[in-house]
């Protein structure tokens, strides 16, 4: 069997294993979904009137439109915390030692985790998106091409964060540590342009909000779904994603290939 078909075959076996885990034990994924959904409802129904005034909008529905793109990306960040936890859990299992002594494609264990996690992210994004639509989010002006680009961006962003989360899981000795180490993935969207525009933040803080992966990705997604100005954000977001994906991939595979302790 050629190297590539071996890689694909073993990775899809590992993917099936991870999806089986996710299906048997959905509580972790569902718990992680709660945060973005709660935040969505909180900011729309409790803070919505004040917030919409803050962004210069007319009413609450303007704020829903502003908020949903950021929360979709936050959902991805939240889901990948689950990835870090499950990778870390998995590494403490004897079965990983077994995989390492089998003549299988070496990277398939991690690829299985990444593909499984990206699929979970997409399902989560669809669920949170559905809640958004249910409370009044509309993206009817976007073209099919913009929709596809938005979807592509979400997948790319999920892939990038997932590889980083896999690395975080691999360096964590247990699930608690993994959950702590992965905190930035849920913290970064809080200090991005998810809830308020960057130029509404204090001057000293603006660079922090601006020069991080979430803000350009959010601005790009807003542009694609709602027709706002994208500017350079599209390229910056793609560059962030590719950079993080490559970094996370290199980091994770180096950690996984090192001798286990």
């Amino acid at each position, binding site marked *: 069997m050629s190297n590539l078909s071996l890689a694909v075959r073993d990775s899809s076996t590992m993917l099936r294993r991870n999806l089986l885990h996710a299906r048997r034990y959905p509580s972790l994924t569902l718990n992680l979904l709660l945060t973005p959904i709660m935040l969505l409802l909180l900011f729309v129904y409790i803070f919505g009137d004040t917030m919409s005034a803050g962004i210069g909008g007319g009413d609450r529905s303007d704020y829903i439109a502003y908020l949903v793109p950021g929360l979709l990306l936050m959902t991805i960040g939240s889901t990948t915390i689950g990835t870090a936890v499950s990778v870390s859990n998995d590494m403490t299992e004897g079965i990983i030692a077994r995989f390492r002594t*089998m003549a299988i494609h070496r990277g398939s264990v991690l690829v299985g985790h990444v593909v499984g996690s990206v699929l979970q992210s997409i399902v989560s994004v669809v669920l949170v998106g559905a809640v958004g639509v249910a409370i009044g989010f509309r993206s009817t002006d976007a073209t099919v091409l913009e929709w596809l680009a938005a979807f592509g961006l979400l997948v790319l962003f999920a892939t990038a964060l997932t590889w980083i989360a896999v690395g975080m899981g691999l360096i964590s000795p247990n699930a608690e540590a993994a959950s702590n180490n992965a905190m930035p993935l849920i913290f970064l969207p809080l200090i991005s342009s998810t809830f308020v525009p960057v130029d509404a933040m204090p001057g000293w803080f603006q660079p922090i909000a601006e020069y991080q992966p979430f803000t350009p990705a959010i601005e790009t997604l807003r542009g694609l779904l709602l027709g706002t100005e994208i500017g350079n954000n599209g390229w910056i977001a793609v560059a962030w994603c590719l950079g993080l994906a490559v970094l996370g991939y290199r980091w994770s595979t180096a950690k996984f290939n090192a001798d286990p302790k």
Partner: protein
Amino acid sequence: MTDLAIAANGLRKAYGDKTVLDGIDIQVPAGTIFSLLGPNGAGKTTAVKILSTLISADPGTGDIRIGGHDLAADPQGVRAAIGVTGQFSAVDGLITGEENMLLMADLHHLPKSEGRRVAAELLERFDLAEAAKKPASTYSGGMKRRLDIAMTLVGDPRIIFLDEPTTGLDPRSRHTMWQIIRELVADGVTVFLTTQYLEEADELADRIAVLNDGKIAAEGTADELKRLIPGGHVRLRFTDPDAYRSAASALREVTRDDESLALQLPSGGSQSELRAILDRLDAAGIEADELTVHTPDLDDVFFALTGGADVTDQPDQPKETVR
């Protein structure tokens, strides 16, 4: 020389400045059981981890060939030839026993129908058919270990590493495991077994190497090892202190144990040697209350080679762990 399934020369491994394996040589002919015997922390698990490609040996290690494949140059070739069952169960607890087996079949690239057949056969053979649909995390220790071995056998490996396969099992499960190991060898499989139980090595292994402090302290068949140390002894116990004292003076070369009124004298345990002792006691008119003959067993060898009573005094030594 017969075909060697495992040949390792000068195996070395150190963690920081702690030397775990200090240049050990291992030769295992195909189709035999080799047992690496040693106390906790002796380096048994480290040896298995290196030979099964889990961790790398230190520089300075000589050639290692497993099933004809060079470990350093062709680890995938080695992996295709071996099966490993580690000290801690290498099963996926979140999925069922059957799913674990099918996972192995998929990773060995068996066609779907054959994978199902092999999985069902092995589950049946290891008495797990009934529990096949339950999550592996709900299995007992013995069941997990059986599932573990069943998973190892899916790929029909010709060389199997078993790292303390019976540690923590109850006596019945231990005997079941022994039976499984014997059947494997009957099929021509080579088994590399580590154990801290002398009885187990004595029972199963064709050759035994005693590992202590990173070095092979002795190697040979169980009988050869037993011959390495001085013969056995006869122990006489008395209840009457006077009889004890007169026996001690009548018999020379005794080791006295005043506390329990017992005498110990070296003896191979043969009929004539025993008769000589009894004759001398009769001649002195002394009656011992109890006479026991102690022949050397692997325990004596083990304690003699691994630094005596220290071993039994340290049950809390940190265990080697497999990650």
